């Protein structure tokens, strides 16, 4: 009798705990549930810890300084490594690291050594440069393989041209990238979200100008 009761108690506990765990698991699943192909909140680690907060925010570099094709091609484009070198040919580390090296050199009474931040070293490596940042024939220039964040399905043909030329701010779709240390997909990029904006734009215009934002299927699907 006791044995049966004991067995039942344990069984009850196990079942209750199991049920609680299921509820927790379900709750977590519901919280993070996305429709297929919706990657809202996607924030992958990139091969180089490039900070948009620093470049676009603190240094106020225009988006299109690097993403040059936004107004003239479908893709705004991820900058070629050579674009980084416009500055990073000379800027090889943070000002803090360089000052620290200067102070250390002063203390040790020697010429300061060149300082290269570990992240920028990855860039130079990807471009096949040697220590003097000159092309090294023995190294392969494979480029930087970034992880794509804003990724639409293959049957969607989004074009940056009409949006950028109509004056739609980059942040409308990409969020406040200039505040992000690591870029995250802010909007869900679903069709409903696109169409809502198109309908709104047709009513209220973009930046005070009236626009003709098509809601035809063929605007994006072909």
């Amino acid at each position, binding site marked *: 009798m006791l044995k049966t009761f004991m067995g039942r108690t344990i069984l009850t506990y196990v079942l209750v705990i199991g049920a609680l765990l299921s509820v927790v698991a379900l709750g977590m699943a519901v919280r993070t549930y996305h429709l*297929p*192909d919706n*990657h809202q909140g996607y924030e*992958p680690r990139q091969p180089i810890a490039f900070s948009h907060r620093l470049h676009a925010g603190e240094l106020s570099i225009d988006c299109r300084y690097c993403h*040059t*094709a936004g*107004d*003239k*091609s*479908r*893709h705004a*484009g*991820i*900058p*070629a*490594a*050579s*674009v980084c070198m416009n500055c990073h040919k000379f800027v090889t580390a943070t000002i803090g690291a360089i000052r620290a090296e200067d102070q250390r050199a002063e203390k040790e009474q020697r010429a300061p050594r060149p300082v290269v931040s570990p992240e920028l070293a990855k860039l130079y490596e*990807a*471009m*096949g440069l040697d220590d003097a940042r000159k092309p090294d024939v023995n190294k392969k*220039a*494979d*480029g*930087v*393989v*970034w*992880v*794509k964040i804003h*990724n639409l*399905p*293959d*049957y*969607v*043909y989004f*074009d940056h*041209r*009409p949006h950028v*030329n*109509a004056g739609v701010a980059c942040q409308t779709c990409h969020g406040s990238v200039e505040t992000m240390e690591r870029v995250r997909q802010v909007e869900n990029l679903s069709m409903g979200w696109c169409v809502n904006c198109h309908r709104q734009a047709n009513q209220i215009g973009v930046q005070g100008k009236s626009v*003709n934002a*098509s809601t*035809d*299927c*063929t*605007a994006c*699907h*072909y």
Partner: protein
Amino acid sequence: MSPNSTDQYWKDPEYAGKAESGNGQVPWTEDAPGEVSRRNFLRAAGFTAAIAAAGCSKAPVDKALPLVTQAEGMAPARSRYYASVCGACEAGCGALVKSRDGRPIKLEGLPDHPLSRGGLCAVGQAALLGLYDSHRFTGPQREGQACDWLEIDRIVLQKLDEIRTAGGAVRLLTSTVTSPTLNGVIARFLARFPDARHLAYDPLSCSAILDAHADTHGIRVLPRYRFDRSDVIVSFDADFLGTWISPVEYAAGYRERRRIEDKPETVSFHVQFESRMSLTGTNADLRYRVAPNESGTVLSVLADLVAARLGAGGAPPPAGGLNTVPAKVLEDLAARLVTVPGKSLIISGSQDIAVQRLCNTLNHILGNYGSTLDIAEPSYQKQGRDSGFVTLLDELTSGKVNALIVAGVNPVYELPEGQILAESLDNVDLVVYCGERPNETSGHAGLICPDHHFLESWGDVEAVCGIAALRQPLIRPLFNTRSLLDSLNVWAETPASAYDAIQGHWQEHIHPRTDGADPFQTFWDRTLHDGWARVKPETAAAPTFRGAGKSLADGSASQDDFTLIAYPKIGLLDGRHAYNPWLQELPDPVSKVTWDNYACLSVAAAKESGVKEGDIIRIEGRGLGDALELPAHIQPGQHDRVVAVALGYGQETTGRFANIGPQWILSHPSVGGNGLVGIRVHGLLVRENGCLRYERTGLRVTRTGETAALASTQTHHTITVPERLAPAGGLRRPIIQETTLDAYRANPHSGSHAQHDEYKPLFPDDHPKHGHHWAMAIDLTACTGCSACVIACQAENNVPVVGKDEVRRRREMHWLRIDRYYSGEGDEIDVVHQPMLCHHCDNAPCENVCPVLATVHTQEGLNAQVYNRCVGTRYCENNCPYKVRRFNWFRYRYDDPVENLALNPDVTVRSRGIMEKCSFCVQRIQDAKYEAKRRQEPLVDGVILTACQQSCPTQAIVFGDLNDPESLIARLVQSPRHFRVLEEIDVRPSVGYLTLVRNRMGEREVEHHG
């Protein structure tokens, strides 16, 4: 036959005039080429379950790989266009190459090119697949083993040195070389040896024309034929709109004289005498069936009649008359010819030098030299000398040749002496093969020097005297290849890059032929940008006619024997593009058969010998060796004593197509019993006076009793309304409207049916188009049926290749097809070509049956197909009156990573279970609209060219915005010739056609009701 019905036009001779089967159209039958066994069913079921289980996985992480160094002006996903020269054949048409993200993805016609005038043929456009062909040589080989270029050069130079010191013979075998620089390098290379010669032959030879000019004009020359200057064109077996010498150039010129609205007074008159049904014959104003051995006689009678009228002597016509052509026809023709001195053109496709000499004489007495035949600035498109190869073969078999370099050609396959040649190659010390891919000849070569594709290399072309063109590389070579120019330069011990060699040659030889107004660099840069430049001819004086005897040996074939005609087929030509699946699946414009060659018999001949479509027949005769067994195809309009078989089939390289198309339990391979596509007939060619002849007399045709199913599309997607489905009391309008030029001049509305019954829509037009309203018009008078548009569409829209078996099941995927209708009876027929594509109906029947709104109308009048919504019910396909929707029965193969580079990134690759169809190239429309917005300019008419329109050699297709009153399309819609197909069912299509106008003399005029 009632003139006021659809019965006038039919597609398939077997069903012509049979009312019970829907008026000349084939009833739909479900053919089951095989049975499903229980075991196979279970196997497939299990496989499906396994695939379904494996299909669940996480979304993959996508990578983005930008450039390392940003090129100036380059933006990702933005197409750039470069002018170049098409290298698919020797015609030298201008090509505009679309390059995206560093790789060429489309070949188009180069606007304003003096030869091709903006057109590009099916073969030229399909040549893109030749670049992305993973079966190409990937690097040099020595005795079948991969090696490097240094080793090749070491061996070649060493052997050549030995030959030079021993005084041995070096031979270079190529097809026609139109590159001035390459000709220069060849001369420099050969000059290093005491006994060295360059021999050029053309697989589709025009040697007799050149030899005849050597007789009559004292210079071996191919005239440049000017169809744009000809009032009267008389062609004997020359398929100049399809496959003869330079079809795009000729079709564009021909079209210039077919501008019915703009210049009705200059419309040319074209008579075709031919033995098989060629594409050119289908377009002729008058066409007569003539046996191949009789065409010389007809020409001779015509020449006599013309000479008599011009008072230049000439024998009286034969007393008994001719077998096939009424005497009056030739008399009328002669009368017409003499009224247009210097404005007629007599051409012959014959390889009989006597016939060609007669042709020259007739052209001379008509005053055509200097106007419609240009020999002062002649064509270099065919330079081959057939007799040269015979000499070479003699030398080879007797072991007199020490080194043979074969470049670009495949003589073992292409020439009748292939087998002898192959055996004799073993006697040669050094056999080098320079070419793109393995073939019958390369297997006998010790050294393989893989050549670049023309999109990978620098080059120059002077296809016609005075038009010098530059070819530029669009991509770095995909494989370890080297151009022939580079190779010969290395072996001549004057190594220079192809670029330097060409620039050097142009500086020295081409630039002095300009007027010298621009310095060389300016001239070079401009030519590179434009793709071509006009220069002065090398020699100033035009050769003059010096007369020639015109003895003509009459053919003496018995009445019962058949003559075999080996003809080049559009797409395959001489077989050099047999590797190309697009061209293999391109329906022949006349027979509509894909993936095979076959023996064409006329309706009467087939009836007489009891042959039905698809019966395997045996062709045998004297000296033929093994009998030829081929499936029969009944070809109305062919001469009754002719059996025509296409060249270019049965090549080793087609073995790769064994598994093309979806592989499933009922699939059959696309290759025949020999493991290849079709059967080689090049072995049946004969030589006469050194000239390669494409006809062979004295053959018998018998049935073998076996049958084979040809993959013919001629009865697929039939749109004629059967009688039982016609609107009650209403008329079934013909799908074609045609008239004659005389009738058109009298009444521009002639041939039109719209005047008889106006259909008033029941509901008001409640969907007005406010912005653009896209529409298309196709001029049936201009359309020659050449099928360039079909390949253009395939390349632009990523249309998959399905293979022979799926074509047999009516599952070909071409968005644009060309319907070919016959009218008339038996073999005395007229032909109409009608390109058929999605009509983008404003009242589209497909749209309201779609349960998931996957096909909807846009505000600009497009009938959109949304792939991601489609669930594949196929209701729309059922309800489409034009039968232009295509269903993806399978996920077609995209497993070749090299070939996939040819895909257009601007168009979705469709998956299984999805309906697809013509989108009016909406990707081009969107791109042009965005570009206009960016430049803040209005969208100008003519900026958007659909793929089919862009490459049309005759500009038959016009696309534009109906809401723009200035646009060409808006004017064409108002034309009295404009009509819409199946207008009576009130679907309001956006595609219209312009009535076909034939330039006919009295007798054969089409009767018109009204």
